[in-house]
């Protein structure tokens, strides 16, 4: 299975990269841009057929290594690869 992690700066934590990208987009004429968050996308391929188990393990992976919850929020999804 494939676990897709979407990680972004936590709400309330300043994201200078996102702010700079937002300004850049506006300068290119995309005046509708209200805000930008720049994060990370991580793919983890696992030898696991049980979806529930994969979800549990993915949460542990996030907590132990992939995400620093002091400064980052995340979501993930488990799909067949």
């Amino acid at each position, binding site marked *: 299975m494939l676990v897709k992690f979407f990680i972004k700066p936590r709400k309330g934590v300043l994201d200078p990269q996102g702010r700079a990208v937002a300004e850049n987009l506006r300068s290119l004429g995309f005046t509708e841009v209200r805000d930008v968050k720049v994060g990370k996308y991580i793919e983890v391929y696992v030898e696991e057929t049980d979806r529930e188990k994969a979800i549990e393990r993915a949460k542990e992976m996030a907590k132990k*290594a992939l995400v620093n919850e002091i400064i980052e929020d995340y979501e993930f999804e488990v799909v067949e690869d």
Partner: protein
Amino acid sequence: MRFGVAVYPGSNCDYDTYRVLRDVLNQEVQLIDYRTEKLDGFDCVVLPGGFSFGDYLRPGTLAAHTPLTGAVKEFAEKGGLVIGICNGFQILTEAHLLPGALMPNVHGKFVCKHQYLRVENSDTPFTNQCEEGQILKIPIAHHDGNYFVDEETLRKMEDNGQIILRYCDEFGNITDDSNPNGSIKNIAGITNESKNVFGLMPHPERAAESILGTEDGLYILRSILESYSI
């Protein structure tokens, strides 16, 4: 006193630190490989600056999960003195030996310069040779030094005297202009609750010989020796 200096793949201030401890302070010092599982006979362990594991994922994360850092955790839990400089500070936060996190600098640039720091607490094993409010001039060199911690933890740290160094101007004023990276409350260095683990972004080992323009780093390094001799 017997020091150990951690060596992770990508550490690059390890030998500077080793040399200062050995040749300037005349201490016994040994480099320790990151695969080491047990720490025996050390009085203080230094996690040096650099870019351990290429800063992959987040600075300090991969180093925080090595056997050596596991051993450092045990060492710290028994009261051993641990100092993390720059990338070492990042490793200590990622290993949860220190609260908070170090984010990319607010301006997105690598910052490398001499920086004034104000000593906020001189009653620690790392600052006992300083006066409270003393201004130190020590170089900084980092891309991810923007310290962040939630408000409740910050209040507890302040009440417990865990904020050790703040970025300031040459007169000791804590201002936005003197904050080089966007750190919350100008924080440059903190300890854990029991004050045996110290993390700081400035490099005391680069400020230990007059030929380098400042010897103020010796106030910190000599404090460690003093705390050991008591």
